[in-house]
Structure formats: C-alpha cells, structure tokens
C-alpha cells in the first residue's frame, strides 16, 4: 500500500521532470524510468502481462527509437523563435495561456466524471461483474489456456489482436516509406 503510493508519486515526479528538462536526452532517460516505474506499479496491480510489455516496449523500444531519432536531429531544445512584435500584446499573452486552459478544462471534465466512479479496488465494481467473470470461469475449459489474458487476447478477442498486428505492420511500412533512402 505504502509502496504503491510511493511509486505513484515517483511516476508523477518522473512525468513532470521528463516534460520540464530542456535537454532532450535527459527527458528521454527519465521517460524510460517513468515507463519502468509504471511497469513495476502494474505488477503490483496484478497485471503481469501488461507490465512485461510496458517494460519491453515503453522502457526498451521507445527509448531506443527516441535516442535513434535524437542522434539524427538535435539534443537541446532550441530557444523559441523571437516573438513577433504583436499588434495587441494582451491577445498574444492570452493566446499563450490557451494550452494551459485546454489542459485544465480536460482535467476538470475528467475529475467531474471520476466523482461518480466506483472506488479504486472495489471488488463489486460493474467492470468486474458483467463480462469478465465469464472469461475466468470458462476460458480454460473452452480454450485450454491457463493464462486468462492470453485466452482473451488470442481467442475471445483474437480479432483485436489481428488488428493490433496490423497496426504495427502499418507503422513499419509507414516508417519505411518515410525514411528509406536506398530502395534497391
């Protein structure tokens, strides 16, 4: 319980630091730590499969891809271009606040929605009562698989997984068409 709490705080700190650092290399490293902490947190929430994936993808592949991209671009965040002499300085300073406003508004909507949610960890939350128990009862007799996550992933919602593989294939082809230089 205390560990979870500390982990959650660390995740927030890492998230903030990754955004605030000017040096992008630092940001990427902290992002890797952020993903790894997330993975540890998720193991504590019993989602071993997702934690495994997040550690391999979030902390592994994403970090490597970011570093590779960085090696072909710039390490430092540039100084922003000199602001144009605004006709109405008031409007210019307000427009800089728009992103913050959008973010706060989104946060407010989420908080509003969360007020009616069942408490965290509530065993009788509707999400755990309708479809999920069926998988837990039936997936082994019906598919012969012991890991419920694999049973759902590969069988009950196997078509989603086909879509998922198609997504990653699409990403591969997109990167090829965007970056490949020598085609022969």
């Amino acid at each position: 319980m205390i560990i979870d709490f500390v982990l959650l705080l660390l995740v927030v700190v890492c998230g903030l630091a990754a955004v605030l650092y000017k040096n992008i290399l630092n940001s990427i490293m902290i992002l890797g730590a952020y993903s790894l902490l997330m993975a540890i947190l998720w193991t504590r929430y019993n989602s071993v499969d997702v934690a495994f994936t997040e550690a391999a993808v979030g902390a592994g592949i994403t970090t490597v891809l970011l570093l590779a991209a960085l090696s072909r671009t710039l390490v430092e965040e540039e100084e922003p271009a000199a602001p144009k002499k605004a006709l109405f300085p008031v409007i210019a300073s307000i427009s800089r606040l728009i992103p913050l406003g959008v973010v706060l508004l989104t946060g407010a909507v989420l908080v509003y929605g969360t007020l009616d949610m069942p408490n965290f960890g509530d065993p009788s939350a509707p999400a755990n009562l309708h479809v999920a128990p069926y998988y837990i009862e039936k997936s082994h007799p019906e598919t012969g698989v012991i890991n419920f996550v694999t049973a759902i992933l590969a069988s009950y919602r196997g078509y989603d997984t086909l879509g998922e593989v198609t997504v990653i294939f699409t990403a591969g082809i997109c990167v090829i068409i965007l970056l490949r230089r020598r085609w022969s």
Partner: protein
Amino acid sequence: MEAMDIIAGKYNYWIYITLMMIGFYAVIAKGNLIKKVIGLNIFQTAVFLFYISLAVRTGSTAPILLQRAHGALTPETAVYTNPLPHVLILTAIVVGVSVTAVALALAIRIYQAYGTLDEYKIAKMEQDAE
C-alpha cells in the same frame, strides 16, 4: 468525511488525471517536435494506468489460473483481477509505440527539410515560403 472518502478512495484516478494533464500539456504547449512525442507517451501511458486501475480488485490475484500445486483447476478457489482491461491495454501499448515510431520518422524528415525541430520556426518558414 465524504470529501476525504472521495479523495482517498479514488487516489489512483487522481494520479492518472494529473499525469494525463502533464502529458497533454507537453503535447500542445511544447514547441520541440521530439518533446511533443515524449509528452504523447506520457499522455497515453496515463490512460493505460486508468485502465489498469479499473481492473484492480482488492485482495485478488494475477489473472493466471492457479493450478496444479493446489491440485484443482477450478477458478473458484481464488479471486482474480479482471483480465479484460489488461488485454485492451496490451493492444493499446502496441498502438502507442506505432504512433511514436511514425511521429519520430516524421520529425526526422522535418529536421532534414527545415534544419530545426522548433514548431514556431517551422511555421514561420512555411509562412515565408508562401
């Protein structure tokens, strides 16, 4: 007391909302194109945390059938965490890395074409070109 209950009972959700706001802010307010991708990752991971949190049942065990050591293969012997959100997030993580890869490819191409990764400088060059 009720307010305390809301704050303490849903603490995980408050954390995910905070993270989402941090990531979202980086995506829309940061000028550097790679920084935006970093923000996008935080933004997406926050939503994953939301899904994982809603699957948690206090006192449950990982969604893998407890087996032979205890003799029986019946699921009733244990309370399991809801496996369905885990499946959804596995898919969503893949989507996340796919988007990151394509975004980085585009950022590299932009750097090759413009010599900068700053959104405002690029916008200015585009304006001048017109």
